[in-house]
């Protein structure tokens, strides 16, 4: 495999995603969860006043961006893989002289690119349309947001591929990944911004990989992350990236052997 062939694949996969644009749009529109969270947090803010350390503006900025970032960094590869194994499409990927990881990565990148294509402009437009929604960004912080979103995306793809690989042995991987995701939702900044969580949960959130793809870029975006905190966050991301690279490569080798042994 070469960088060229990988880029060509991304191009093709983006074309596929463009074909699905209507579907993607409906899908994005129907993922109301972050806005539900926002609504509830605004109610909390109204009832509790000063006891809540975050302002109304910060909450609005956080959750509107959460709606975008969560779509850009999440990965459906575990399910796609599950489906490919069932339908036999996985065989075609194994027959190509390119590691399936990159084939799936290309698919995910193409899909997220199309999403970014209309989500990011929508968010920018929303900041102009609604005065309550503003971000005060310096170029450096803006860049940091982009970097952390990219890192979060890569880490998530790697994690979901690791889970997918385990599907060589078990048919329950999609469910297990749901558990992982569910646990993550508490710690990623999805249910609440990390700062608003109870202390022990907050510590777990800082140390585990979940926050990398959600809370970290969002906290930087709304200005609730110091330079030191951001650096620490990126280091945590890098650490987990290494852990999952190790896990993935080991599982892949063993899993492929297993797949070759049992698939009918």
């Amino acid at each position: 495999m070469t960088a060229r062939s990988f880029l060509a694949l991304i191009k093709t996969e983006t074309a596929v995603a463009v074909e699905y644009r209507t579907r993607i749009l409906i899908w994005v529109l129907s993922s109301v969860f972050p806005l539900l969270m926002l609504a509830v947090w605004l109610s909390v803010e109204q009832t509790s006043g000063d006891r809540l350390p975050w302002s109304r503006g910060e909450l609005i900025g956080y959750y509107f961006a959460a709606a975008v970032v969560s779509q850009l960094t999440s990965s459906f590869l575990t399910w796609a893989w599950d489906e490919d194994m069932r339908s036999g499409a996985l065989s075609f990927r194994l027959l190509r002289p390119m590691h399936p990881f990159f084939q799936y990565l290309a698919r995910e990148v193409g899909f997220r690119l199309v999403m970014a294509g209309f989500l990011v402009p929508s968010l920018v437009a929303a900041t102009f349309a609604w005065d309550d929604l503003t971000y005060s960004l310096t170029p450096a912080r803006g860049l940091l947001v982009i970097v952390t979103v990219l890192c979060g995306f890569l880490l998530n793809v790697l994690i979901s591929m690791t889970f997918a690989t385990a599907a060589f042995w078990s048919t329950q991987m999609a469910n297990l990944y749901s558990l992982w995701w569910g646990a993550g939702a508490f710690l990623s900044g999805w249910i609440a911004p990390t700062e608003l969580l109870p202390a022990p949960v907050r510590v777990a959130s800082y140390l585990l990989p979940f926050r990398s793809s959600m809370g970290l870029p969002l906290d930087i975006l709304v200005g609730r992350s110091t330079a030191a905190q951001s650096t620490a966050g990126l280091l945590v991301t890098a650490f987990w990236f290494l852990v999952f690279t190790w896990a993935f490569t080991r599982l892949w080798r063993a899993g492929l052997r297993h797949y070759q042994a049992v698939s009918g």
Partner: protein
Amino acid sequence: MAGRSPSLPGGQRLRRYLRLLRIFWSATVQAELEYRLNFLSNALLSLFWLVWAALGVGVYFRFGETVNGWSYPELLVVMGWFFAVNGLRQAVIQPNLGRMTEYVRMGTLDFVLTKPVNSQFMVSFRHLGIYNLLDPLLGIGLMVAALIWRGEMVSVIDLVGWVVLGAGALSVVYALAVAIQSLALWAIGGEALDDLLQGVVEAGRFPVQMYRGFVRALLTFALPVAVMTTFPVEALLGRTTLKLVVVVTLVAAAALVGASLVWRLSLRHYRGASA
């Protein structure tokens, strides 16, 4: 159970359809028995999501006793009922109407339409997602626990109100599913149609009082979110009125009739387009 097609007069026909239902569902159950590990893992998953939701709500109450007039136990009752409704959606609607796009694309719908059975019935109740049948039980369990924690008696009248409003809620969800999935017959939306319904139902996770202004009006009057979760739970908490019960019943009946009309209209279009 979610509403049945309104055009089913006569006890004999009803019996026939109930028998069909038994045959359909026992076939599904048998097919799923093949995957025994799925049972365990889905049961665990259901329990996990219930605990997840209950704890998640708890975070809000770190900053105050109530949120817009709702206490923690009261919100848990809503959560339990939401779990029940959503579980039924996943068990009955998703495996059937949720696959409408697939039916159209694979031509399965043509098989359905050539059977001498009401087509809406066939596309609505052919399959059963048995893994999600645990969700309603868990949800009701959570409701009972939350009501005990709240510490106020639930009167028989409250209970009757909940049953009536709950039936209305399920009918409205079913009607909405039929209407949304009818779009597939016009080649609109694809698989995302199911996500659309899920999005609407998802908004029922919280009572409408959590939302404000335009959004609350939208969720109360345009989308059936208030009907779906807020009203039935308010009945249990002794906060409903007879007038509301009557209105919701009428709305539910109208929704079922309307959905059936939309289905037939779409079917006529589909037959016209594909002939």
